[in-house]
């Protein structure tokens, strides 16, 4: 029973973190039709930035968090302006370039901070809460709460503001949006900054809990792609729902068997969805 509750809380936290990562990925696919393989590396950069500005320079966790969001958003803007914009005519081009960015960011982190770094980020919420006789570190609850706040904020942004309307219009029909006078370039730029910033925020949130390493983005991006395929590519609601379902599924299988079995099961689940229902849980039907 205790083990069950513990696993449930862990899966809630995993769901929160992966929802933040996955929403950004789905957002960029929706707006720009780009599969960003470097998205997991943005998460990694977020964790390093939180450590560097928060712990190493001594700014504290809040400063580290803001810095992580800003650094990753800037990388996102850079990718849009210098890479994606120039490869518009080439359908696989942006995807392949993001693989290049993935390798560059990974190497840069390894070069700057070392491969086997042992970096610790202190959480502002030390100690643990006691829920039903189980000690749950406060930071884990903070991650869940912060994810809910951020995703709620994103929903408000997309549903109520002019920018949100414009962004959703671009995602639905680029040409019609352009005819309405919406600047595709500006929307793409902001969407990329938003998407990257969310990945950075996830990295900063998880930094006190996980081991920070240059390669920490790789399992994340694999999970993220499985999740957006489950949820239906480009669908934000589907992505969040699938993140919760998949993270719970994965955490439970890892807890009761081991993580290799969980990975195999996850990959098979993705293949099954690709074959049986390629539009995913909530995506529009499309030819694959």
């Amino acid at each position: 029973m205790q083990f069950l509750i513990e696993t449930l809380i862990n899966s809630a936290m995993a769901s929160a973190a992966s929802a933040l990562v996955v929403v950004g990925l789905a957002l960029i696919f929706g707006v720009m039709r780009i599969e960003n393989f470097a998205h997991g590396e943005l998460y990694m950069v977020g964790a390093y930035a939180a450590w560097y500005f928060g712990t190493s320079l001594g700014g504290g966790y809040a400063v580290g968090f803001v810095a992580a969001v800003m650094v990753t958003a800037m990388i996102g803007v850079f990718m849009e302006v210098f890479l994606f914009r120039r490869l518009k005519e080439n359908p696989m081009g942006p995807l392949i370039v993001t693989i290049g960015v993935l390798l560059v960011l990974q190497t840069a982190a390894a070069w700057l901070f070392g491969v086997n770094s042992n970096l610790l980020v202190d959480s502002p919420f030390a100690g643990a809460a006691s829920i039903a006789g189980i000690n749950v570190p406060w930071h884990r609850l903070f991650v869940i709460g912060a994810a809910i706040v951020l995703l709620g904020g994103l929903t408000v942004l997309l549903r109520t503001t002019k920018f949100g309307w414009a962004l959703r219009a671009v995602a639905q029909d680029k040409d019609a949006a352009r005819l309405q006078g919406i600047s595709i370039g500006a929307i793409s730029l902001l969407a990329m900054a938003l998407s990257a910033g969310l990945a950075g925020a996830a990295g900063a949130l998880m930094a006190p809990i996980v081991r920070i390493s240059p390669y920490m983005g790789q399992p994340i991006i694999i999970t993220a792609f499985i999740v957006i395929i489950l949820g239906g590519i480009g669908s934000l609601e589907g992505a969040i729902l699938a993140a919760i379902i998949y993270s719970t599924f994965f955490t439970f299988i890892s807890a009761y068997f081991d993580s290799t079995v969980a990975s195999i099961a996850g990959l098979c689940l993705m293949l099954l969805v690709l074959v049986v229902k390629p539009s995913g849980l909530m995506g529009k039907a499309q030819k694959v």
Partner: protein
Amino acid sequence: MTSNKKAGFGFAIIAIAAAAIVPLVAGDYYVSFSTEIAIMILMLSSYRMVVLTGEWSFAHVVLQGVGAYTAAIMVKDWGAPFPVSLVAGAVVAAAVAAVLSFPLLKMRGFYFLMGTFGAAEAIRLLWRKFKYFGGTRGFSGISAPYLEVGPITIDFGHPASFFYLALAIVVVCLLVIWSMEQSRLGQIWRTIEQQDVLAQAVGIDTRRYRRIAFIISAAFAGIAGVLLAYAFGSVTPNRFNLNFALYLMIWAIVGGTRSFYGVILGGIILMGFDESLRFADELRPGIYGIILILVMLFWPRGIERLVGLDKLFAPKAALPDSGSLAASTKGDAR
């Protein structure tokens, strides 16, 4: 035979002759390295068959691994001789590809890429998981082939003799790949890449021909895997992970996939480059990342364009001038 083809054969013969001299002038280290280049060239050329149909796959390296594991198991468990494990490696890799092709070839573009990744990674994790496949440490101590016909005995454990064996096998495979590409089959592949709908309209079962390309390329990847298993004497699951799949893709792109010679030339140049990066092991992925980005931005046809070999060798019909890399690939839902 056109003059272009003649020139092509001339270059090919010179290249093979140059390769054959390597063991006479270089030490064992560089001979083993040349064996690796030959294996890599076979991998790139067979990968290009899938690329010809307009798809990028992440499964090719794991299919090579299927060949390597087959050879390792044949040798370790049953003491099979080299020719048997060579054929078995190719057949098993092709069979695995044939089974995978049923779900995977329903997909295109990004979905195909992710589908191949999922299937390949699942297979690789099974190797890590089960003791039968040696777990995370894989197999080691795969003994080199040994030939004894009457008075002649050749021990292929010596780098030079194994290099000649690998070179001969790779050259034969490349000849087969080349002639396939020149045949009607190759024309259909190119048609599918450039005009998928048109190909269907004139009665070509595109999925069937994509399946043929996927299975045949897997068979050659299996052969490359068998050679790899014998060359290193060991097989580990990490040798076939996502990084190697990414590198294969990058090398094919940087070399240029439009012409038969692009990937071969790219393979030789990049393997040499890779070797020269040995002093900076940690920086290597980043350097490849930068090269990949620069090639995609400024030079989308890769090395083959630089040397101008494409004009010399490739069939004229297959070279639309605007054709940047994968420009005609039909992506998903675009």
